[in-house]
């Protein structure tokens, strides 16, 4: 980190069409996976509240576990995206 005014030089970003395309597709796949997971929670809360309110793993309610999982999975998918996505210099599609 530079000074308080954030002034270490910022090099001009280089665009690579293939990398942009790859990252966009990867992002969309991960997004769809998460939407399905989130949609499952919404559907269970709205249509099967008694199921989601019942004890599950280790006796903890499914609502608590599913809620935590939605947050933890979001963090894990974010890290996965960070790991799999490409940056300039990585080359195009594999």
């Amino acid at each position: 980190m530079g000074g308080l005014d954030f002034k270490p030089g910022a090099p001009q970003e280089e665009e690579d069409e293939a990398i942009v395309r790859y990252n966009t597709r990867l992002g969309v796949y991960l997004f769809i996976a998460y939407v399905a997971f989130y949609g499952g929670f919404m559907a269970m809360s709205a249509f099967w509240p008694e199921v989601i309110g019942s004890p599950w793993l280790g006796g903890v309610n499914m609502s608590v576990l599913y809620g935590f999982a939605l947050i933890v999975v979001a963090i894990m998918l974010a890290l996965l995206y960070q790991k799999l996505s490409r940056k300039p210099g990585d080359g195009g599609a594999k």
Partner: protein
Amino acid sequence: MIHETSITAVLVFLFFAGTVLAISFYLGAKAKSAKGYFAAGGHIPWFVNGIAFAGDYLSAASFLGICGMIAFFGYDGFLYSIGYLAGWIVALFIVAEPLKRLGRYTFADALDNRFNSRGIKLAAAISTLVVSCFYLIPQMVGAGALIQPLLGFPHYVGVLVVGTVVTLIVVTAGMVSTTWVQFIKGSLLVCLCLFITVLLLMRGFSTADKEGSRQMRAGVPVAEVTGAPGVQVLPAEGAWADKPFVRVRDDKGIVKVWKKEAGDTLSETQTLTVLKDGSKLANGLPRGKGEGQGDLVPVGYASKLPGGVKETGPVGPFEFFTTMQDSEVILWGNQKIVDAEGTTTTVYFQKPTEGKAFMAPGSSPTFSKVKSEKFSDKLDFLSLMLALFCGTASLPHILIRYYTVKDQVSARKSTVVGIAAIGVFYILTLYLGLGAMTSGTLDVTDSNMSAPLLAKSFNSFLFAVLSAVAFTTVLGTVSGLIMAASGAVAHDLMTNFLKIPMDDVKKVRSAKIAAACVGCLAMVLGILFAKMNVNFLVGWAFNIAASANLPALAMLLFWRGTTKQGITAAITVGMLSSLGWILLSAQAYKDVYGIDPTTAIVPFSQPAIVTIPLGFAVLVIVSLLTKKSTPAVAGTASA
């Protein structure tokens, strides 16, 4: 409850505000260029930007509102945590990198990148201003509502202090100082909540009376209350007729209210009475801390613990929840009774509730309809969850943070850091809320105070620090909102829409003037809306942002047939339809106009489930109709 002013809290807040103001003035001299002012020169390190995301996003509504809702109703408050966090997935996977690639300073820049259309600039700027204002009002009112119990000043002082400090922060160094205030606030908030959660787990649960609190009586035979010497039972007439309460006046003339329970028993209640002349009685005594005066008793305790134990000792992170599920906790309901003389009495009554009931969705008035058999009742819940999911990545004050990092890789990395920090915080809200529920320090009149009062159950210094941090949460969010609004005025409207010729210096000057004006407007709105229940405005801001901005942004990125007319129409229709729906909803009827909510025109209150698809449909139809008039541009252009 009457809260004592904490000098330590005032000092901690002054130290924080003084530090960020000193940094702002120090940096102010350096932020001369438009890029420096609007986007901190694009030099902010990704980690700092990630934490600043947390500082920008975790508003008073997130921190105090969610903890309070969990403390009062249980799991339902956590639904907001889930929705608010899930929205970041849209930001990371769909919006972050393209936005950085396409824009310069504002959200309108990215939308307009291909087209150079004045219509898009105008629509996007207005949408930014509308969403920012909807978000600003609850923050400013929240500042006023917090300063009284936390720091001991009247409401308008809170609004003016926040308004002035934030305006100075934004006007001096723009995005650079805004970033610092958000970074400091985000770090403090997450670390402090983590610390309190650890203390909470180490303390465990107990059914014993807490210091300064006592368990209210329940299961008392009617005869024991009404037959006591010198006691007179007041007749159940007028507004008190057909109510489940018994009023008794003791030999000192103090009126107490008991709630009728099953098996001819009564449970003790608490009452707050506002007389016609405005004076207040708490539990039948003049409200105050002096001789002959009284105040409401702090509450919040588990009445039964698993296995009949009185104390659990330290609990593990998952044992915390299993213990809560198998316990019985005294929650509190309330009923307002206005009698013919104009006296308003709010009766707060005990609701012994099993953990199984409050640890699942549908335990609060907001989400109770999720258990309804009626499909439209469920739509309200689904629509709000959709708005929270789609709204985050459409909030202008969040989007502009993407322009402060140097490249797309940094935008991505900073979002990952933001998601991690915000995710940890939202997990902690469930611990903090449930901890507050059983802390013995709850104020039945004010759910927003639950988190600071939980800290008070450990020690008064922690209360002071948490109060100051709670108050400063408002600074971080409001500074981001004012930055977004000033960018929309100076960059989108003045420079790009009205084409007023301005060099960098003039542009920064007009942005600063715009920020000062928005700051003043925020203060005025904060004072004007003081008496209004404004918590729902945050949800509305998410609905409007998602309906107006997301269809345009998503289709621009993923459909090459998108035209400038399509984008302009989608923003306009999305914004107006969601706004119109909200103003015609049962929630607005009840909370804004004060009329019968059953007469509301629209079938449910949260519009996102209708207006987001509407925005997409309008964009597609208008784009198809105007396809020939707009040259298609392959790929994406650089800014």
